[in-house]
């Protein structure tokens, strides 16, 4: 069984928003809702500035608070490590939305269930990468199996120092960030 992770090379993100549109269309995300976003953080004073481009999405945590808090078992962890929502079991109580430290869940108002990034589970089943990865113009998003030592994600995590978002909350995310800033050559 694979263990799916995403590695985000922040230096390669050019903020083009292609991932955002790909995700919305692939997953029919309602208007004004998003499963992924690109955060642009600029620090410093003119002209000494530094920018971090940070794609954010569900971290598919190893220790997922959304799963722990879900009263119906709708939010659950699959064997491949991804966190998924069984829409039939979801009652729309929003407990998961409160529990998630990453603000990546929303209620699908039309149907009443909670929703979020699934790593494009339906595409994975067809042997395709998540839609955001497939169209990532900068090849900033890289997806793969951490249990395969030869996968690109395994190599990248071996060769680069990486971080996760909010490590202090102890959720053990499966989305890893490398190269927070472009290299200064």
């Amino acid at each position, binding site marked *: 069984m694979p263990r799916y992770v995403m590695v985000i090379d922040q*230096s390669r993100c050019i903020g083009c928003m292609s991932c955002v549109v*790909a995700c919305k269309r692939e997953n029919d995300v309602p208007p004004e809702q998003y499963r992924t976003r690109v955060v642009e953080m600029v620090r410093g004073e003119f002209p000494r500035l530094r920018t971090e481009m940070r794609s954010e999405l569900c971290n598919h945590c190893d220790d997922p608070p959304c799963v722990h808090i879900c009263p119906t078992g709708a939010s659950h962890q699959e064997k491949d490590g991804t966190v998924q929502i069984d829409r039939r079991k979801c009652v729309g109580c929003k407990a998961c939305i409160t529990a998630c430290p990453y603000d990546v869940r929303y209620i699908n108002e039309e149907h009443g269930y909670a929703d979020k990034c699934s790593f494009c589970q339906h595409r994975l089943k067809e042997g395709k990468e998540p839609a955001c990865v497939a169209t990532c*113009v900068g090849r900033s998003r890289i997806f793969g199996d951490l249990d395969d030592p030869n996968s690109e994600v395994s190599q990248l995590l071996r060769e680069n120092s990486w971080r996760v978002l909010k490590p202090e909350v102890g959720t053990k995310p499966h989305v890893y960030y490398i190269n927070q800033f472009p290299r200064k050559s």
Partner: protein
Amino acid sequence: MAFSRRNFLKLAAMSAGSTLIADTPFLSTRARAEAEGGNVRYVATSCEMCFWKCGVIAKVQKNKKGEDVVVKLEGNPFHPQSNGKLCARGQAGIGQLYDEDRLKKPMIRTGERGDGQYKEVSWEEALDYTVEKLKAVVDKYGPHAVAMMSHGSPGDYFTNLLMAMGSGNIAFPSFAQCKGIRDVAWELTFGHKPGSSCERVDLKNSKVIVLFGTHLGENMHNSQNQEFAEAVGRGAKIICVDPRYSTAAAKASLWLPIKPGTDMALLLTWINLIISNGWYDKEYVEQYTVGFEELKEAVKGYTVEWCAKETELHEADIIEAAKDLGRYAPNVMIHPGRHVAWYGDDTQRSRAMAIINAILGSWGREGGIWLPPKGKLAGFNDGIPEYPIPDEDPIIKGNYPFAGGEGLTQVVRDVTITGKPYPIKAWFVCGTNLMKSLPAPELTRKAIDSLDFIVAVDLLPTDTVMMADVILPECTYLERHDGLFKIETRETGVAIRQPAIEPMGESKPAWWIGSELCKRMGHPEYAVKDSSMDDLQAWEKRMRRQAKAWGIDFDKLADEGYITIPDSEAPYITPENQPVFKTPSKKIELFSSELDEKHFDPIPKYEKVEPPPEGMYRLVYGRSPVHTFSRTINDQWLWELQKENQVWLNTKEAARLGLKDNQYVVLENQDKVVSNKVLVKVTERIRQDCVYMVHGFGQNSKRLTRAYNKGADDQQLITRYKVDPITGGTGMRVNFVTIKEA
């Protein structure tokens, strides 16, 4: 083990324990549909959300009513402009396709020009009315009194119509308002444009990339941005010269926040530094260039101390950049840029950029500017007769000796207003929103008011369309054939546009509209062969004839969307692959004999541009990655991402003016023109002497229900422009504004 996407997908598919559908994106469209069980169609076509012409694969399914619906757009992995990826706009083509504001039926104006009152009519009626009005103009003034302005593929078909009628008054804003000026500058220097389908910049292999105002990332041309990210990821040195800390500047190792209008000072100083320190490629200069001694002499007065004062950059930074260019030459480039119509001296600035590339030896070198591909394809006109010689010489080049064949839109406008040297009384406006693309929109309006007849061919009721007497609804690129397209990247290739679904409403392909008008104007020999009112397949038949003439397997092209011309890629200079310079001297002209002959400076010189008056800011504009000018502004998927633009203002200036981030303000220019209200972005990311906004917002057409009145229109504030005496380009960064609370 080398990673490949193909391997990964195989592994992923196998380990997921599912049926292996191999690597679907690398299959042809037919094979892919078959692999998925036949309830879906994939159509390989070419995007027109911008003009990069990416290869796109449209996924088409039946809805509950049994109608074909385009459900997803992906990049074509076979096509070098997309490499299997699409930008936000490319994917949002479906938003344009299903935009409920689209023009659905032909319309004839019933009220006054610009008041928005129209009646819907049949195509027969619309075409007959158009012909009646055109014939009246032709009979009274001659065919030259009909002009056409266009952007994108519809232009081809109306160019044919006008040429058949005997008018050469055809102009495209892509020349004088955008990149034509640069093309001329590089032709004067190298005898070639710096690119056709794309700029021939070897970004992915470059060691030093210099960008002058070119904001890659925000200016989102797909394959070029893929290579830019590759360069950044590889650790190439990016030097970004821009008064604004753009996305590209955020990726740069060196950001040079130059004083607007002083780029030439920096370029000439770099040339001086590179020559006087011997950092140039001596052998290359010796072998391939003429005019080096004159260049050396001409630039020697441009010192670093002077440059630092002029540009307000640090001396150390100016030197560091030049040194890096020299150290890594020839695997370096000054990117030629794209929209260069800034200050009216733009040909010379583009020349200076070309000259640096030349002395560093980067033309034809890895990491520099690759050579034009081989694999020439013969022109194909499907056996139509030669066009008649226009009854009067076209006026499209004005009095500018180096204006290009694409013509000068503002000259067409001027002649329309003045009637000199002859009256222009009818306009075709095809796929271009002239009210938003030309400077001084009040003049565009004045010209339109003086016309006997104006017809618009477009997808959406834009500001300009809503001034037309007749509106002919074109269908989108997802509903029509166009091409074949010759694609020149590192290699030569051929691409196709073909419909994913039937045209919606009564919209029609531009080729059909042009062809039917040809027939009705009495020029059936220039119409598409075997075309008729109720047949939309005639263009596909023409494309088959074209493929045959070019020796290309049409069915394979239709299935895969793109075909490579074998052995066409020869990007770098080798002993066997020598560059050809189509200049008078057959060499790279550092000293331009052609400019000299026409009494222009044969080597660029620095001239000061007019500074902002006290208390005013220079207005600078640019692009958003999710919009193409004003073309995509009403697309619901893109509108959702960016509904209005912002005006960027330096933090210190905002404090001085008492303005807070994200509050509404209005801008007023030097001619007392006041903008729409617009959100202010208070930021450290811009100099104190200028403000910046994304172009294309502030639509006045109420029929664009999402975009109407959202954000501010930069073009409205560009009431002045400075014309480049060499090419006739319209420098538009010569306007100044004040800001106050809305």
